């Protein structure tokens, strides 16, 4: 897993670094002091190596904590596992954010489109009924006008 790989490579570098910075190498660089105090040189070296490893490991833990690396590595491992079947290269951001963002809008627009189609159809249906009522009302009024006209003519 990515988490283990991360720890392994970092620890390997630390081990190799410590191996490279051997006591012999240390004593040969601090020859003048080593001649004067060989035991002290040895204990200073050991303390140095212990502290160096401890503080680097602690700092790496800090980096992992700060970046939530464990969590991210695990979820990335899962995503990689899920994408195993996928042979083709996957989509990647085009580099023009507004274009990518707009196509991320597609499902909402499609949803909005089908919603609008539905409500428009309902509204047209309502309006059809309203129009029928209006036409009936107009017919009624025409009828009343004709009745009044007939009465008027009768009196005329």
């Amino acid at each position, binding site marked *: 897993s*990515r988490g283990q*790989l*991360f720890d392994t*490579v970092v620890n*390997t*570098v630390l081990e190799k*670094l410590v191996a*490279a*910075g051997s006591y012999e*190498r240390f004593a040969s*660089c*601090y020859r*003048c*002091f080593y001649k*004067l105090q060989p035991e*002290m040189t040895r204990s*200073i070296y050991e*303390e*140095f190596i212990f*502290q*160096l490893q401890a*503080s680097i490991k602690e700092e*790496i833990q800090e*980096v992992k904590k700060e*970046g939530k*690396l464990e969590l*991210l590595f695990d979820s990335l491992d899962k*995503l*990689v596992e899920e*994408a195993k079947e*996928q042979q*083709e*290269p*996957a*989509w990647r*951001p085009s580099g023009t954010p507004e*274009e*990518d963002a*707009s*196509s*991320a809008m*597609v*499902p909402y627009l*499609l949803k909005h*489109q089908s919603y*609008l*189609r539905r*409500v*428009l159809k309902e*509204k*047209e249906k309502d*309006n059809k009924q*309203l129009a029928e009522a*209006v036409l009936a*009302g107009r017919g*009624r*009024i025409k009828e*009343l*006008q004709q009745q009044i006209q007939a*009465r008027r003519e009768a009196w005329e």
Partner: protein
Amino acid sequence: SVNPMAYEAQFFGFSPQTCVLRVYIAFQDYLFDMMLVVESVILKKLDAFPDSKLSPLQIRKCTEKFFAFMKEHFNKLFSNLEKVLLQLVLNIPPNLLLPEDKVHQQYPYSREQFQALQDEVQELQRQYRAEASAGQALRAELEEQKVVQAELEKILQWFAGLESICREHGTSNVKESFTFLTQNSKKLQDVLKDVEKKRK
């Protein structure tokens, strides 16, 4: 680096290079700090040997020599570490699509298709608004019709009232009654004339 690894940055929330740099700095800083500690400890130990003739400058040279060796070695080690981290740990394989981008897989819309979809949604919105205002206009006409219908029915009632008054007074057909009345008046006139003549 040539490859900004933007997609990885989208996933991690920081660029892989930043992470690698943090690791590099962790090693380098602590190596440096520890060297200074070693040097200060040695200098302190030397205080106990005043006739050792070892000067701080000499110790400093030793420190620089050991630090330079360690740093050079570390840089060699680190270039491999960087490769492994960037290629195997902090990278997103090309076939992997992040969950938040699934939408691009499901809806691979080109710019033109997207524009067409947007246009259609706008057209639908416009149509819906037009239908809604048409619905309001139709409702308003129904209200108007109620008023007009009421007025017309009132007039018809008035006519009906007029006619029922006529009926109540026995003149269901005004025209006939009027003709009858006129004839009667004429007859009355004739009778009156007759009477006049006889009287003379």
